[in-house]
């Protein structure tokens, strides 16, 4: 019973307690506190985040001659930190007054807490997996646990959840097929055996395995073209749940992909694989997939008129940055990719929580029915502002640092088109987050929102904490780069040489401490000019406004969000039509192809795999 076992045990206990006591009033706080205990347990093995050695779990199971093992390394610790952190923020947010209202509207807050703690547990199991079999078990657990969270709201959420599970099952089949092939080739599920055998794989094997795993894990990640389930599924989850899902859930796909594809099969080989009739290697292809994962969902987000959907689409897009950074394979780029996992999780948690707070007060997330809330909910506005600056990757928030690392690496590697693609994504993000903040918090305040107040402190506190983290890790990215470096080491990358303020290299450094200092100095100068020079400004009513000399009247709407970027849409609007429908239909055929392939594998090669299937199914049964 070592510290890792303690952590997993506490996590299990959290899930059990919140599951059993889900009708109790105080279960929300209990879950939140238990999650804090988990967080402390995680901190007790924080040596992993600073270059410590791998911690093996004392639990070792053997199923039919196949050993199952669990362990934690720097990478797992890094992801676990984000997972538990996101869960804590969401859980504290959901525990207080929010729960009462949720209950009044027919929801079951205890169930939400249970689903969340269950998700945390399953994710920890996945993160701790020590071989392919335990990875797969963890994977399936995570898939079904997140389904539970997604369908909580019922109604349209159930439809999205079902759509998700169709995708997830297809992905699982693809993973299963991959594992089957590996077992066929190596005769073992252990990572070490696979890593050793990987160098002997033929090119065909590498290609087939990589594609199978990337497709399988990519489904969870929302990698193009497997992203169509994600936005709706995340957006329709009850508020704090979507914050949690948005922050971390799809990163499990990235984690698994890192373990299997990057670490074990090795990306080095993928560079060598040329795709026939093109100039691209397999890695280039994946990078372009990442680039399109950045661009398409980001510009889909631009079109959304529902704040939650807008954010959820961004979640998909930002996944592309992580993938892109990691595929760059150099210390700078991979650090950027990993750092972005952390940064993005903080941003997305802050944004979803802020939007949930807005929905809590206004009962709508429809941007056409919001506006002018800044005077009523200033702190929520602040959180959202910090979040969007981070998400858009503008200094001084943390999102800028990770994106900077990715840009820098793309320049070093000399990839102009991908560089442009990432920048196009960033610009699209700026456009759509401005639309988000403009249409919720700025502009005309509507009558029905005249008398609303700021959300209570039980909701504000977690939001403000997350916002502070966004700022501090932007100010001193070195704090997180510590952990990123050990995660890089665990993955086998050369760790990034970093400083507290960022990166220092001979030809292009970043020092966020100086930068923030100068930026805030600049703001100080601006404030001095503004408040020091000239008379004090007098606030005026929002109808005291220029309208071509007309008297504005309250009967008319002057605030708009539909087709906000009309000028741009004249140009790119046509591209939205039908693209994704075509994609989805082609996906269905891929799925059926995969399932056929899996069946053949089962029958012809390895009856032993049936055992695995049985094990998984029994797990489904147990949880479901």
């Amino acid at each position, binding site marked *: 019973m070592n510290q890792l076992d303690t952590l997993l045990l506490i996590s299990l206990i959290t899930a059990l307690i919140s599951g059993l006591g889900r009708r109790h009033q105080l279960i929300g706080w209990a879950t939140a506190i238990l999650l804090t205990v988990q967080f402390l347990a995680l901190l007790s093995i924080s040596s992993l985040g600073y270059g410590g050695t791998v911690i093996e779990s004392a639990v070792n199971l053997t199923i039919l001659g196949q050993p199952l093992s669990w362990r934690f390394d720097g990478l797992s610790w890094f992801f676990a930190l984000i997972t538990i952190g996101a869960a804590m923020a969401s859980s504290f947010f959901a525990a207080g007054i929010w729960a009462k209202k949720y209950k009044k509207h027919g929801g079951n807050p205890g169930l939400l807490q249970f689903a969340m703690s269950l998700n945390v547990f399953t994710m920890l199991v996945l993160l701790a997996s020590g071989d392919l079999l335990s990875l797969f078990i963890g994977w399936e657990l995570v898939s079904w646990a997140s389904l539970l969270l997604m369908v909580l709201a019922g109604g349209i959420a159930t439809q999205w959840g079902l759509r998700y599970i169709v995708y997830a099952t297809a992905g699982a089949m693809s993973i299963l097929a991959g594992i089957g092939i590996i077992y066929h080739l190596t005769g073992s599920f252990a990572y070490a055996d696979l890593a050793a055998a990987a160098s002997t794989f033929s090119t065909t094997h590498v290609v087939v395995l990589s594609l199978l795993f990337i497709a399988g894990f990519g489904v969870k990640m929302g990698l193009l073209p497997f992203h169509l389930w994600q936005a709706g599924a995340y957006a329709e989850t009850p508020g704090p749940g979507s914050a949690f899902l948005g922050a971390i859930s799809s990163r499990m796909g990235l984690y698994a992909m890192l373990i299997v594809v990057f670490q074990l099969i090795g990306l080095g080989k993928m560079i060598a694989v040329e795709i026939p009739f093109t100039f691209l290697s397999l890695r280039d292809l994946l990078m372009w997939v990442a680039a399109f994962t950045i661009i398409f969902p980001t510009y889909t987000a631009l079109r959304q008129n529902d704040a939650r959907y807008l954010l959820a689409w961004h979640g998909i897009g930002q996944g592309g940055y992580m993938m892109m950074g990691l595929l760059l394979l150099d210390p700078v780029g991979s650090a950027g990719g990993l750092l972005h996992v952390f940064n993005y999780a903080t941003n997305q948690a802050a944004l979803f929580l802020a939007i949930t707070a807005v929905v809590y007060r206004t009962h709508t997330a429809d941007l056409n029915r919001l506006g002018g809330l800044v005077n009523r909910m200033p702190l929520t506005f602040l959180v959202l502002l910090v979040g969007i600056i981070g998400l858009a990757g503008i200094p001084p928030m943390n999102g800028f640092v990770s994106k900077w690392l990715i840009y820098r690496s793309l320049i070093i590697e000399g990839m102009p088109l991908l560089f442009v693609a990432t920048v196009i994504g960033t610009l699209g993000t700026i456009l759509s987050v401005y639309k988000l903040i403009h249409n919720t918090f700025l502009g005309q305040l509507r009558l029905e929102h005249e008398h609303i107040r700021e959300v209570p402190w039980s909701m504000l506190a977690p939001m403000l904490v997350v916002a502070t983290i966004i700022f501090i890790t932007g100010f001193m990215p070195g704090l997180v780069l510590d952990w990123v470096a050990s995660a890089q080491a665990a993955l086998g990358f050369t760790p990034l040489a970093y400083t507290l303020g960022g990166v220092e290299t001979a030809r292009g450094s970043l020092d966020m401490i100086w930068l923030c200092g100068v930026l805030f100095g600049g703001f100080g100068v601006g404030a001095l000019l503004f408040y020091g020079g000239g008379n004090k400004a007098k606030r005026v009513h929002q109808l005291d406004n220029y309208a071509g000399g*007309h008297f504005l*009247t309250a009967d008319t709407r002057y605030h708009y969000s539909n*087709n906000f970027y009309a000028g741009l849409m004249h140009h790119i609007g046509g591209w939205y039509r039908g693209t994704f429908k075509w994609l989805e239909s082609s996906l269905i055929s891929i799925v059926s192809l995969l399932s056929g392939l899996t069946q053949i594998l089962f029958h012809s090669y390895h009856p032993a795999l049936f055992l695995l299937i049985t094990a998984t199914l029994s797990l489904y049964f147990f949880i479901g």
Partner: protein
Amino acid sequence: MRPENYQAVNHPPSNEYELNFGPNHPGIEGNYALKVKLQGDTVVEARADAGYLHRGFEKLMEDRLWIQNISLVPRICVPDPVPMEVCYSLAVEELAGLELPERAQWLRVLQLELSRIAAHLFYFGGHAATTGMYTPMYWGVADRDLLLDLFEELTGGRVYSIYNMPGGVRQDIPRGFLQRLSDTLDYIEGRLKDYDNLFFTNQIFVKRAKGIGIISQEQALEWSVTGPNLRACGLEFDVRRDDPYLIYDQLKFDIPTEHGGDAWARTLVRRLEMVESISIIRQVIKALPDIKGPVRTPIPNPLAWRVPAGDSYARVESSKGELAYYVVSNGGDKPYRVHIRGPSAMHAVQVLEKLAVGCRVEDVAQTMFSLDACPPEVDR
């Protein structure tokens, strides 16, 4: 009295919002307003809002002597005041049976065409400014000022000349005026090439103006479009030729037409009309020294001048379109009723409202300016 409601009301969820063009807006010509409802950046509904310049001209004219009204009428259309005087004078002359001396007729033509050039120079400066191009405006207005100098020399007034009166014009031309006029015309003709390069053939302007605010010929006739706007739809109609007044039937001039019916065609028609007007004035300059005689038929004591009962209708081609006066007299010393048929009322209200729908925000101002409506004349 107060239509404005400052207390918040519940808005139904809607994709539309409102934007006010004017009255205090650089995208509107003068003191006039257009209220548009937008979806994204496309206009779905436009309402013209006139009346900011209403002074009650037709009523005021009933209260003044026949001769006093001469000083009132030019104020109806500020950028192009001369046709107002001429047209009113023509109507009164017909009513009173006054014979117009030939020299006065030539002088009136001279003045009308000068005014047309000045109005067009002013117009396309404004049109250029709506598309963000200020240099033609600066140049155009400065060149127009040279014409105003000539007006001043001829009449004593820069803008409102009050030079015409029933029976003729107030005085003959000063010495050396024709030479200076001819020099100025040469200068302006030389400048037209610069304007072509800078503005009329500027590729970005052509791109922006083409296809904006298209009026078909049928629509134009149905909506009472007249003047250059009608000729831009391809219909060759000009009061100067089709219902000649003064000595226009003795002059040679073309009637430029275009077929697009869009903002670009309307601009081009005016550009070509400037050349025609210059050539008309040249003909006048040539003919004028040979035409002798008085410039005015004397009228009886103007303060007690009673015009015989009856009614008359006179129309002229102003730079904006067909302008007409319907004057009724009951034999008194003041008009019994005056009705003014101004071209802008049609262009700025019904045509603009219809053309603006479906337009982009970017093109609303351009549509308005390309119609060259004159708000003071709309409101009167």
